[in-house]
């Protein structure tokens, strides 16, 4: 183990500089937390914590603010996008690790990585100009016609299909997180020892049974960590949803209504906030988002670390 040579001044100085640089990460996390709390203190003292979380008001004119509508939008779009993305991503991972011929594995891996590299603003713009019209013309009316009459599910698809709504936002968000979830799942599946799989094949298991009963249980910790990581990313995604969500502060049952997420309200209203309380409330939203995503990401990291420890045994 290296020991810092305090007698050598240059070495000591260099070690101090590097220590300072790495401690900057810690200072940034603490700094963000402190600054956000300080900036939102006005709103915190005015609305409290529980009241702010419960209130569905978002009225800049009357200066009455609450987080319930934006948290609702954030949670609905995130959960819905995960519900679409996770099965597809795991399907892709199964295809790449178990089904695809070797010569296809490389290209598909590259394709997944390229999809992950496209910036979110491109997804957002593509969603506004290409996906939203398709959704409003074809997919949403089709959904209304086919399952819109059902008693409970039908509630989700009420209203005029405009394309600028939670459903479109969730679809874009899901396309964005698919590559991310898929590449982590693929890496996790690849960790399954070939011997274990082969012994399952040897007793006559079909390919699907091997995946379902051997590969998935073996890699479930890592896959779960990957899914949680995607959840954390989706919570904080701004530009991909900012174009197509409409920034309308409301809680509605229909997925075909415009809504607002924390990120979208911040993007649209931050530079327009004309009063201190308004700006402070927006900082309050940012603080809530920071804590939410930090907790989710920390949980994801714990799962991934546990998985790592198990597989390295």
């Amino acid at each position, binding site marked *: *183990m290296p020991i*810092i*040579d305090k007698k*050598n001044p*240059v*070495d000591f100085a*260099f*070690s101090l*500089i*590097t*220590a300072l*640089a*790495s*401690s*900057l*990460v*810690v200072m940034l*996390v603490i*700094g*963000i937390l402190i*600054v*956000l709390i300080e900036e939102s203190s006005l709103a915190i003292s005015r609305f409290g914590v529980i009241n702010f979380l419960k209130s569905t008001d978002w009225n800049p004119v009357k200066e009455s603010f609450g987080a319930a509508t934006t948290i609702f939008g954030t949670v609905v779009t995130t959960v819905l996008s995960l519900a679409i993305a996770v099965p*597809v991503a795991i*399907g*892709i991972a199964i*295809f*790449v690790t178990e*089904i695809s011929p070797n010569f296809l594995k490389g290209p598909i891996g*590259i*394709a*997944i*990585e*390229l999809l992950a*590299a*496209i*910036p979110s*603003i*491109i997804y957002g*713009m*593509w969603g506004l100009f*290409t996906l939203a019209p398709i959704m409003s013309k074809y997919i949403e009316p089709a959904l209304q016609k086919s399952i819109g009459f059902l008693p409970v599910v039908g509630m989700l698809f009420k209203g005029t299909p405009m394309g600028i709504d939670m459903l479109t936002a969730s679809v874009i968000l899901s*396309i964005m997180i698919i*590559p991310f979830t898929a590449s982590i799942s693929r890496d996790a599946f690849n960790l399954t020892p070939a011997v274990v799989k082969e012994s399952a094949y040897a007793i006559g298991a*079909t390919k*699907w*049974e091997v995946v379902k009963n051997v590969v998935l249980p073996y890699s479930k910790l890592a896959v779960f960590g990957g899914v949680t990581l995607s959840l954390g990313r989706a919570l*904080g*995604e*701004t*530009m991909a949803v900012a*174009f197509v969500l409409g920034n309308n502060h409301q809680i509605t049952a229909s997925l075909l209504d415009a809504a607002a997420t924390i990120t979208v309200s*911040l*993007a649209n209203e*931050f*530079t327009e906030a004309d009063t201190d309380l308004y700006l402070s409330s927006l*900082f309050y939203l*940012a603080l809530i988002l920071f804590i939410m*995503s930090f907790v989710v990401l920390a949980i994801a*990291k714990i799962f991934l*670390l546990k998985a790592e420890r198990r597989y390295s045994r």
Partner: protein
Amino acid sequence: MNIDQKRRIESVAALTLSTLAALAGMFWLVFILGDVLVRGIGALTPSLFLNDPTPPGVTGGGLRNAFIGQLMIIGSATLIGVPIGILGGTFLAEYARGTRAARAISILADIMVSVPAIVVGTFVYAVMVKPVGHFNGWAGAAALAVIMIPVVLRTTEDMLSLVPWTLREAAFALGAPYYKVIIQVVYRGAATGILTGILLSIARVAGEAAPLLFTSFNNSFLSTDMRGPIASLTTTIFQYAMGPYEEWHIQAWGASFVITVFILLITIVGRLIIKWRYK
């Protein structure tokens, strides 16, 4: 139908579904990339690069201000973020190797990599815009640097850890102090890896719009003054795409084309370097 048949059908059905999932993934990639390339290439005119924006309705406008602003912001962010990231990663992989503190910072950096970019924007707004009283380019660069630092730090740490310990011991045995060992032996061994990390971190922040919205803001005029609001491609895309004018939309597609091609090229080069060096 006996149980064997049932199992076989189930297997075929499940595998077909995952093949379809893979096809769906490829479909989206082709759809999005194709759309951006086809719509964007038509917008690539010399005036897009050479002219500043004109008022809506006046033809011949371009985004020269945004291209220059983008380069300045990304360049400054790289100059701030990369040295700090590399030095921080050096501490974790060398001086603090194996300690609890290093492990904790490394985990924290991993979390920071995925922290919402827009939250970083609000933080930098409070620290660098509010006290000054106006939006400024340095704030935008700082916000991007905050996003870059954990990325560079983690890749540097990983790459330095790949350099065999015996190599350092050989240098120690010649009487070299640790800092010389790091700079002349370890950095050299990990150079390509660190370079890849830098490239990928640039690709990561080059497409970020959220942290720039309320730090460097936007500017319809050409400005190279980092102390004032400065235009960037990403915020311009946001403004133009949401705007009502058809010419704005076309220019937004052109800007998207440039930024997408730039980022994909960097990503591919980065991957090629990794492949060439580490396989």
